[in-house]
C-alpha cells in the first residue's frame, strides 16, 4: 500500500465507523434511551467492533488463507462476533447494571446486535481477503515481469558478446589479405566464418546439444583464429569416445574458449597451445580448457570478467548449482574446468 492510498483508506474507514456509530446512537435514542446511555452503548459497541475489524485486517495482512478461505472468513467473523457480544455485554453491564429497563433492552437486542456484528465482520474479512489477494497477485506479476526483463537483458548482452565486432572485422581483414595471395584459402575462410556466424545466430539458450556438435563448432572458431595468427596457435582436442554423445547446453563452452584465446593468444607473443579435453565422470561431463598466460601482464582472476561469469550464471540457471565451474592458475597455465550434469 502506498502512503497516500493508505491515508485515504484510513479516512474512509474512520468515516464509515463514525456514521455507523451515529446511526447506532440514533436508533437507541428512538427506543427511548437517554443521551448518556445511547452514547455509551454506541461508543463501547462500535469501538470494540473497530478493534475486531483491525484484528482481521492485520491477521490477513500477515496470514492469507490459501485453502478453504471462505470457511475461514465465516469462522473468523463468527468467532469474533461471539467474543464481541460477550465483551460488550460485560462492559455495558458494568456501567448500567442498576438500570433495569436498559438491561432488558440489551438482552432483547442481543440477537440483532450479534447479527449486525457478524455481517460487519464478515464484510470486513471478505474485503481484506480480496484486497490482500489482489495485492499479492500484483506483487507476483511484478516479480515475474522483472525476472523476464532480466532474462531478456542477459540475452541481449549475450548476443552482443557473441557478435564480437573485433573478431569479425579482423577475420574479414584476413580474408581480404588472402584473396590476393591464396584465393582458395580465402574462400575456405569465408565458409568457416559463415558457419560460425550462423551457429551463433541459430542456437537457443535452453537447447541441449551433443558434445560432438559443440566441439565441431569450437574447432571452427579455433580454425579461424589459426588463419589469423598463423603458426602461433596450435590446439589439442582430446575427447573420450564415450563423451561424444553426452549433452551440454549449446554454446556453453564458447566463452570459455574465447577467454582462453583472449589471455592465451591475444595477450602473449610466443607460440601457444590451447588444450581442450573432455572426460566422462560419474554422470558428469567434464571439460577442461587449458591456456597459457603471462602472470606478469595479465591477471586472469580479474579479467575473466564477463566471459566466465556468464558461464557461471548459465550453469546456475540451468542446474541451480554454483560449483560447476572451476578455474585455477598453475604457473603460466590457466585451467578452466566445467562440469555438466547428465540428466537421464
Amino acid at each position, binding site marked *: 500500500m502506498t502512503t497516500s492510498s493508505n491515508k485515504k483508506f484510513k479516512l474512509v474507514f474512520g468515516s464509515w465507523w463514525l456514521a455507523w456509530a451515529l446511526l447506532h446512537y440514533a436508533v437507541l435514542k428512538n427506543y427511548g434511551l437517554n443521551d448518556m446511555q445511547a452514547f455509551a452503548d454506541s461508543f463501547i459497541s462500535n469501538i470494540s467492533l473497530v478493534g475486531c475489524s483491525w484484528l482481521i485486517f492485520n491477521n490477513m495482512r500477515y496470514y492469507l488463507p490459501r485453502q478453504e478461505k471462505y470457511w475461514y472468513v465465516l469462522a473468523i467473523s463468527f468467532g469474533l462476533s461471539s467474543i464481541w457480544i460477550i465483551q460488550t455485554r460485560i462492559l455495558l453491564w458494568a456501567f448500567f447494571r442498576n438500570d433495569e429497563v436498559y438491561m432488558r433492552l440489551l438482552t432483547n437486542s442481543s440477537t440483532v446486535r450479534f447479527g449486525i456484528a457478524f455481517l460487519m465482520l464478515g464484510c470486513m474479512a471478505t474485503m481484506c481477503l480480496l484486497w490482500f489477494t489482489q495485492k499479492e497477485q500484483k506483487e507476483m506479476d511484478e516479480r515475474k515481469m522483472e525476472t523476464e526483463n532480466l532474462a531478456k537483458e542477459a540475452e541481449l548482452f549475450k548476443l552482443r558478446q557473441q557478435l564480437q565486432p573485433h573478431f569479425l572485422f*579482423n577475420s*574479414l*581483414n*584476413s580474408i581480404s589479405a588472402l584473396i590476393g595471395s591464396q584465393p582458395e584459402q580465402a574462400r575456405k575462410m569465408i565458409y568457416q566464418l559463415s558457419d560460425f556466424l550462423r551457429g551463433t545466430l541459430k542456437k537457443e539458450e535452453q537447447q541441449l546439444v551433443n558434445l560432438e556438435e559443440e566441439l565441431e563448432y569450437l574447432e571452427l572458431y579455433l580454425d579461424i583464429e589459426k588463419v589469423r595468427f598463423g603458426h602461433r596457435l596450435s590446439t589439442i582436442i582430446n575427447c573420450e569416445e564415450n563423451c561424444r554423445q553426452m549433452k551440454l547446453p549449446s554454446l556453453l563452452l564458447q566463452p570459455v574458449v574465447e577467454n582462453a584465446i583472449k589471455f592465451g593468444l*591475444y595477450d602473449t*607473443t610466443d607460440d601457444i597451445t590451447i588444450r581442450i579435453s573432455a572426460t566422462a565422470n560419474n554422470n558428469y561431463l567434464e571439460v577442461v580448457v587449458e591456456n597459457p598466460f603471462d602472470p606478469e601482464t595479465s*591477471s586472469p582472476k580479474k579479467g575473466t570478467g564477463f566471459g566466465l561469469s556468464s558461464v557461471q550464471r548459465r550453469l546456475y540457471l540451468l542446474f541451480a548449482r554454483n560449483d560447476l565451474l572451476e578455474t585455477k592458475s598453475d604457473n603460466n597455465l590457466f585451467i578452466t574446468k566445467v562440469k555438466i550434469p547428465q540428466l537421464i
Partner: protein
Amino acid sequence: MKALIIDDEPLARSIIKEYLQHFPQIELAQECNDGFEGVKAIHQHQPDIIFLDIQMPKINGFEMLELIDNPPATIFTTAFDEYAIKAFESHAVDYLLKPFSKERFDKAIQKWLGQSATAILKNNTQSLLEAVAQSPAQSQRIVVKTGGKIKIIPVEEIHYLEASDDYVKIHTKEGHFLKNKTMSHFEQLLDANIFTRTHRSYMVNIQQITRMEPYEKESYMVVLKSGAQVPVSKTGYAKLKLVLGL
C-alpha cells in the same frame, strides 16, 4: 623513405605490404610482430612512417608510441575500437579501419605525403596520445621504459606516486620507475577510489596504507605496508578521510 608495419597478425601485415608495393618511393624496413619489436625497430630504422595496429599483446599501439621520445608519423590500423576511433576523429590523425580498400590506403598515403613537410601530424599524434591515455585499457596498467627494457606495471601494484621535476616516480615493490607525465595526468587516469592525491607531490594507493600518523603542525604522514612514509597535506587529509570513510 622508410616505413614499418607493426601488427600481430601476419595476414594483416601482408595486405599493407601488398598495397605498399605501389609506392616505390617507400621502402619497407621491417615488419614487427608486437610493440616490443616495434620500439626496437623504430630506434634502429628511424622510419618516416609507421603503420600501427592498436590491439596487440601486452602493450597496445598507443602504449608503444608513448615509449618513443619522438614518434614518427603514424597511420593507425584497427578493426574495432570505439574509444580509439573517437580519439582519431577528434585529433585528425589518419587511421584505417580493417578491412580497408586499396583506394582508402592510397588516400592515407597521399595525405601523409602531402603533410609530411609540416609538423602538424606529429603534434596531432601527441595530443591523440594524451586523449587515449584515459581509455579503459590504459587505466589498468602503466608501461614504462627502464634501461633498455619495457616494464608493464599493473596499477594495483603501484604503492605510491611521487612528483619529480618533469617526471612522476612510480614506486612499486620492485623499486621506482620514471614516467614522463604529470601528477594531474595520473590523477585523471587512475581510479579515484584507490588512488588519492594526499599531497601536491604525492598520490597513494589506499590499499597499501597501514596507518596514519600526525606529523608536524596540521599535517599527517601515511605509512605503507612497505614501510615507506608518504606526506599528507591538510587538504589531502580531508580527501583521504573521505575515501577511507572515516
